């Protein structure tokens, strides 16, 4: 029974995964472009945001159509509600990608701090991996994985703090570069927020599976997925 509805729900899930993996890819691309001062790719990432927004809206409208036409209950309702929230988070994550693109253009072609060159890709890679794992948890309805992903944010935060300190040192040593430093700090901030948004996705995955929404606060995470035996 309800084969058509089940197909529609599966299509929603597939659309979220497609959108999510594109956002994932753009996190990496944008960070690489930022490091290599590739202004063309930076510009492309800014432009790509429009399509991401449109797809997010379309998935949201599809959700609302299903609410109106299928009157979803229980597990179905939680899936649709979670998809609505998750696509919102994906769109916001891509706004951070776009933000980095704009900063990249503002910075021009000159080099950035060596420590950012060295660690920003690592930070981006952890953020991307978090998103990948969160989407995997969503696809597999894996509540255990969704609970473990947020712990990876500790590494992101540690890198953030370290790079933030480097930027502060940069300002101290070259006060006339304060505007440039400020831009770098914003780029760093964008990357760090990406991980926070991914935690929100995990919270919605848990709601979707268990029917209970709980905010996952700092320090209360379960072991990260790469520490799973």
């Amino acid at each position, binding site marked *: *029974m*309800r084969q058509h*509805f089940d197909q529609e729900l599966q299509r929603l899930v597939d659309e979220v995964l497609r959108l999510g993996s594109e956002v994932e890819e753009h996190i990496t691309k944008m960070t690489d472009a930022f490091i290599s001062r590739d202004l063309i790719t930076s510009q492309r990432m800014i432009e790509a945001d429009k399509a991401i927004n449109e797809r997010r809206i379309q998935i949201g409208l599809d959700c609302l159509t299903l609410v109106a036409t299928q*009157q*979803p*209950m*229980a*597990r*179905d*309702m*939680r899936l649709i509600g979670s998809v609505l929230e998750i696509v919102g988070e994906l769109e916001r994550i891509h706004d951070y990608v776009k933000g980095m693109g704009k900063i990249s253009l503002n910075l021009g072609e000159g080099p950035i701090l060596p420590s950012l060159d060295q660690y920003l890709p690592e930070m981006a890679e952890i953020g991307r991996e978090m998103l990948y794992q969160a989407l995997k948890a969503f696809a597999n309805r894996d509540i255990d994985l969704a609970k473990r992903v947020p712990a990876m944010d500790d590494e992101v935060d540690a890198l953030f703090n370290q790079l933030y300190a480097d930027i502060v040192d940069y300002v101290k040593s070259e006060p006339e570069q304060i505007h440039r430093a400020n831009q770098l700090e914003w780029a760093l901030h964008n990357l760090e927020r990406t991980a926070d948004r991914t935690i929100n996705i995990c919270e919605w995955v848990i709601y979707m599976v*268990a*029917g*209970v929404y709980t905010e996952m606060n700092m320090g209360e995470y379960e072991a990260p997925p790469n520490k799973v035996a």
Partner: protein
Amino acid sequence: MTNSTTQHTNGNTDYAIEAKDLHIYYGNFRAVKDVDLQFRPRQITALIGPSGCGKSTVLRAFNRMNDLIPVARAEGEILFHGKNIYDEDVDPVEVRRRVGMVFQKPNPFPKSIYENVAWGARINGFKGNKAEMDALVEESLRDAAVWDEVKDKLDQSGLSLSGGQQQRLCIARTIAIRPEIILMDEPASALDPISTLRIEELIQELKKNYTILIVTHNMQQAARDSEFTAFFNMDEDRAGYLVEFDKTNELFTNPKNELTEQYITGRFG
């Protein structure tokens, strides 16, 4: 909130009415088994479940309407003010006065609108004069949200009204005898969507004064209208049983039982 399905307190006055270990038979066939359910005063509880799961049978047990079926019998207890309504010294007519019922198909008497409301009160011992009866009829029709539509034609036949108006007239007839509990068996299933919503609005109003049990096939109606929902299913012997009882918000968003989940999401039933 206490899990009402597991609480067994003899004659607990927190409850308007309760079923304890209720089994209902039609001859040798057990139609309903093991029902324990408690209803708090002035709350709406929806009884849902697939066809044949016994939900209407359970509903009718609460005012001994099943007595009218010769082969039907109930085992267990239905406690109303601490008294089992199936005790030998209980008059079923008195039970039905205090536990009123509204049926699926509006069934006004072939009499005037006025008489439809006045009659029940009269046979239940209403002793007032004409002016007092007029007042009771008006109040009941007002409470049933149909007064404005019928006030100028009270002497016309109740059958002249639309389906939705007839059903509200029947509700007026039920509340004219001041029951404590109103049982509703699919009260809107024979009505169009607008009339259905009017009945649903009315039910919300009635809740202020009455405890309401409503059997419905319409899941959205159960979700919209009730505070508690009881989900029934039938076992392999076709005996109906209670699967899950919970706050409506909880049951429709996060049911505990997989059968409930399957039913409310339309995967079985």
